[in-house]
């Protein structure tokens, strides 16, 4: 779950970090009121959970409540990378002296927490890594030891602060807050970019990003509720897919893909691409999928406007070929037939039963995934 900037900043604030005054607004009237209360100049920031909002026109400064009102009318309803702007965060404009980068992630290789710190910030970490990798400092924290003063010293001095100054104290408390947010809220990412030094000399997280582990949401009912009220980047369809019990990712081609297991499904996409076709999606029905789940999966692709051919690739262990075949049969029956072609390759448990069921509805079963992939690609050609 990706937290909005305003939610992330509320958390930072809860952990004692000073953030610029701000209000959430849902209408131009609320924007006007917020700008008046905070005092102009203000910045209007579109609350959409994608990176690069600024470049896409999602961040604008206003010098008066009236200007904020007018600007916000254009910003509400705006599309930013496929997401509609419904919320604006109105925040006090901060004059900045310099911008830094600070984030906290989990490092897979060392199985430790990892701070990434750079005295230059305001651009993507990917960009910093490309243009000036020597600027990025990595500080690892072992979960069994926790965050210690020497970690903090290492980060804060790298960011360019002098020990004993008020700025050092502020930066140190931000490092501590980020670590506590990470651990207390099961976060995968806690990021402040830019972390800024204002003209007044305060160290302030100008932007804040937090991603919480979806698997841990059951521990955080408040976040679960917030996600339900505002699904943000989770499309209605993805939410539906999750409820039914499969993983779905939209791609751009015309060969619909259904597989069991993430690796095999990805490999099926790659196979279609290898033979000159273009996968339309990633759809993993998981292990031991029932007839019902398979039916829903096939229906999704039958109703998908871009999909010309559906390629089902199943390697059964706990997934039974007869259940899969019945699911396909049910989906076809419910749709009352289709003009789309279906190509199936199944291997494993109850393969013969599956073959017989598919023969009834005129769907051919392939022995080899390669032959099946070639056929699917051929059928998708105009």
């Amino acid at each position, binding site marked *: 779950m990706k937290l909005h900037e305003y939610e992330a900043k509320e958390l930072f604030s809860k952990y004692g970090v000073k953030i610029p005054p701000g209000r959430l607004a849902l209408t131009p009237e609320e924007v006007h009121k917020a700008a008046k209360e905070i005092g102009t100049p203000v910045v209007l920031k579109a609350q959409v959970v994608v990176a690069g909002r600024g470049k896409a026109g999602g961040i604008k400064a206003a010098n008066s409540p009236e200007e904020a009102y007018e600007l916000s009318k254009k910003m509400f309803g705006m599309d930013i990378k496929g997401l509609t702007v419904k919320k604006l965060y109105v925040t006090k404009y901060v004059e900045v002296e310099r911008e830094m980068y600070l984030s906290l992630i*989990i490092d*897979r*290789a060392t*199985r430790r927490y990892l701070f990434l710190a750079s005295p230059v910030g305001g651009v993507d*970490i*990917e960009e910093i*890594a*490309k243009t000036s990798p020597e600027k990025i400092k990595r500080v690892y924290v*072992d*979960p*069994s030891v926790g965050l210690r003063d020497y970690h903090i010293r290492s980060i804060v001095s790298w960011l360019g602060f002098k020990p004993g100054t008020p700025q050092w104290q502020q930066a140190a408390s931000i490092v501590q807050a980020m670590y506590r947010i990470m*651990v207390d809220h*099961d976060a*995968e990412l806690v990021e402040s970019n830019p972390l800024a030094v204002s003209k007044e000399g305060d160290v302030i997280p100008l932007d804040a990003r937090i991603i919480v*582990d979806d*698997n*841990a949401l*059951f*521990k955080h009912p408040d976040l679960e509720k917030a996600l339900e009220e505002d699904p943000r980047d989770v499309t209605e369809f993805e939410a539906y897919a999750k409820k039914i019990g499969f*993983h779905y*990712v939209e*791609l751009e081609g015309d060969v619909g893909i259904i*597989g*069991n*297991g*993430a*690796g*095999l*499904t*990805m*490999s099926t*996409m*790659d*196979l*279609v*691409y*290898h033979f000159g076709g273009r*996968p339309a999606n*990633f759809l*993993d029905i998981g*292990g031991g999928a029932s007839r019902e789940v398979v039916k829903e999966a096939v229906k999704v692709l039958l109703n998908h406007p871009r999909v010309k051919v559906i390629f089902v690739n199943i*390697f*059964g*262990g*706990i997934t039974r070929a007869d259940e899969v075949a019945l699911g396909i049969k049910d989906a076809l029956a419910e749709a009352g037939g289709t003009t789309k072609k279906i190509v199936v390759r199944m*291997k*494993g*448990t109850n393969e013969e039963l599956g073959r017989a069921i598919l023969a009834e509805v005129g769907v051919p079963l392939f022995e*080899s*995934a*390669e032959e099946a992939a070639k056929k699917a690609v051929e059928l998708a050609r105009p």
Partner: protein
Amino acid sequence: MTVLVGPNTKVVVQGATGKEGRFHLQRMLEYGTKVVAGVTPGKGGTTVHGVPVYDTVEEAVKKQGANASVIFVPAKFAADALLEAVDAGVELAVVITEHIPVHDTLRAVNYARARGVTVIGPNCPGIVAPPVRVKLGIMPNSIYQTPGKIAVVSRSGTLTYEISYQLVRAGFGINVAIGVGGDPVVGLDLMEATLKVAQDPEVEGIVVIGEVGGDAEERLAKLYAEGAINKPIVAYVAGRTAPPGKRMGHAGAIVMLGSGDAKSKIETFRSVGIPVAETPFEVPRLLAELLKK
């Protein structure tokens, strides 16, 4: 011999009375695995397929001499189940469960490793060794009937079965297959598992199955280039067509921070002299060519 498991491996199944646990306990028994106990809190004193069930792992270890555990416990309780197994004194724990919170995994896996316990998973198919007929996991028994000298090490489940099946069909036998798991943080990772099987004198060739996300493939390639692995390796990497920033089913399969994409993994393997199959079906041919040399 095979790595990690052998004739003396005595297995306790945690979550033995659940649907998954019950089903796979039976398959493991059928394969030949010495499943000596099951554990489900509150179900102590009952049996599953003739195997005694206990309330705690400690009892299973004391009364039946269990030294390895397979965990089918639901995600909310799985990390605790792993900690319990470690404290009870098992040497190997295989965590099948998917969707465990990553911070929970982080703590439990580090705890296990600090005490010298090998953890395979979470979110994995487990380990199977045809020469000794031991399986701790959920792989289909039918594919692992031909013992031999090839080790398969993988981040994927079904793709492991698919490639193992293709290998057997082409005339190879399997020494061991290890699915290390699809989560961002796992116990034994792809690099460590490969290093482990490479040290087994019985293993003649290794098939490594990678996928998008993380840098285990890159670390493995580096180790290989340094000469730490002196066995022939053929690799396959799934997810060339995976878009960046999207999670491809596995929690760990995500291209992030400008790294982890399949293309760079494939190039890295090739740059150190590890052949990479274009499709899973090309693996046996590449392996045969490599072993002929």
